[in-house]
């Protein structure tokens, strides 16, 4: 496949990357490329310059604080997260990442990329919202932290501006989490997914049913309470080749119950 002509830069630091993104209106960051390269093949997006983030060590790695808080570099690949000892502080992260695509895609695809593409069928956006992650964004006006539930603004749109970068994902400690999905084939594209957290307030977050993850707060963890809560949302899931809106709506209840059940079991409930 022939991509449109494009420029290429491979900065070694976040500051250099931000400078390059700010200098050129048509510049876009290249993370794992497992979404963007395909998009460019189809010419659905045609950046003028690709700013390759793969050489920026300060955006990689996972640190575990003494209080159990995880700081995840956005250029950490999905495979690296799965293999990470530190990431075991929040086991749901590796469990969900293991369900993404395949080995090759996980070896290049990044945690930050999966989050920032804000594709409604992605795994990590609803998970980040469910576990109460915080996303740190750096730009010319400095750094700011955005809670996950305010980060996803629309399809392919996040709080990260055109000349900004996601620089850190902060995850609080917790083990009472769940995730469930119905996908096209094993580990394929999600038709509907749900991430649940029972660390404190019970919440379940639905993916694939709207432009951004949908937060649902069931009154209790039992199946009926969860279904009632999902039914009470105003979701209008899309219809596409994989599923009708009605089917997604029905599946949303099913995966929400599964995710909540898993989270509640781990909470000892």
């Amino acid at each position, binding site marked *: *496949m022939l991509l449109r002509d494009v420029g290429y830069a491979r900065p070694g630091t976040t500051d250099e990357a931000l400078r390059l993104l700010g200098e050129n209106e048509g510049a876009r960051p290249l993370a794992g490329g497992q979404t963007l390269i395909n998009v460019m093949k189809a010419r659905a997006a045609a950046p003028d310059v690709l700013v390759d983030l793969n050489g920026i060590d300060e955006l990689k790695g996972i640190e575990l604080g003494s209080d159990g808080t995880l700081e995840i570099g956005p250029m950490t690949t999905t*495979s690296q997260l799965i293999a990470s000892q530190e990431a075991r502080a929040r086991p749901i992260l590796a469990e969900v990442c293991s369900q993404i695509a395949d*080995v090759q895609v996980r070896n290049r695809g990044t945690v930050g990329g999966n989050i920032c593409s804000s594709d409604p069928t992605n795994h990590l956006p609803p998970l980040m919202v469910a576990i109460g992650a915080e996303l740190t964004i750096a730009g010319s006006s400095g750094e700011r932290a955005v809670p996950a539930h305010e980060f996803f603004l629309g399809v392919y749109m996040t709080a990260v501006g055109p000349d900004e970068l996601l620089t850190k994902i902060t995850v609080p400690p917790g083990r009472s989490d769940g995730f469930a999905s119905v996908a096209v084939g094993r580990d394929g594209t999600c038709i509907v997914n749900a991430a649940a957290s029972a660390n404190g307030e019970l919440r379940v977050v639905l993916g694939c049913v709207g432009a951004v993850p949908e937060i649902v707060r069931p009154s209790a963890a039992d199946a009926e309470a969860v279904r009632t809560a999902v039914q009470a949302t105003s979701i209008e899931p899309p219809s596409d080749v994989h599923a009708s809106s009605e089917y997604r709506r029905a599946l949303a209840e099913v995966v929400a119950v599964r995710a909540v059940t898993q989270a509640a079991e781990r909470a000892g409930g």
Partner: protein
Amino acid sequence: MSRITVEINGTTYEREVEARRLLIHLIRDDLDLTGSHVGCDTGNCGACSVILDGTLVKSCMLLAAQVDGASIETVEGLANGELSPLQQAFSDHHALQCGYCTPGMLMSATALLRENPRPTDEEISKGIQGNICRCTGYWNIVKAIKAASGQEVAE
């Protein structure tokens, strides 16, 4: 244009590449290493799989410009005068028919066995999950990889 230096199967190549050049096209069209195949072009089929700095990747999903300074292994590097044990196992267990997915399968299997020298059937299936085969139905491929790992295979 970028100037890149890349080692492939032990040979160093220096080339000028356009930024938009996909790695698979550098490998196949510029360097004449046509063992790696273009199957789907969308990163689904895995026929383009190669090992980059020890990591299994789909070469149609990377730019050639991204591999400056890297070391790549392709299917051409597996044999050493004669078929590798893995390749021989593919032949013995009829793990290929048209052969189009085979280079990718071999690279995925190579990567898997390095990380997991005695995989279960389930682990093998997971290891080749990124490789699609239209001919064999996969079972002989799984058997071949299992046999290559020195484990017994039910025939």
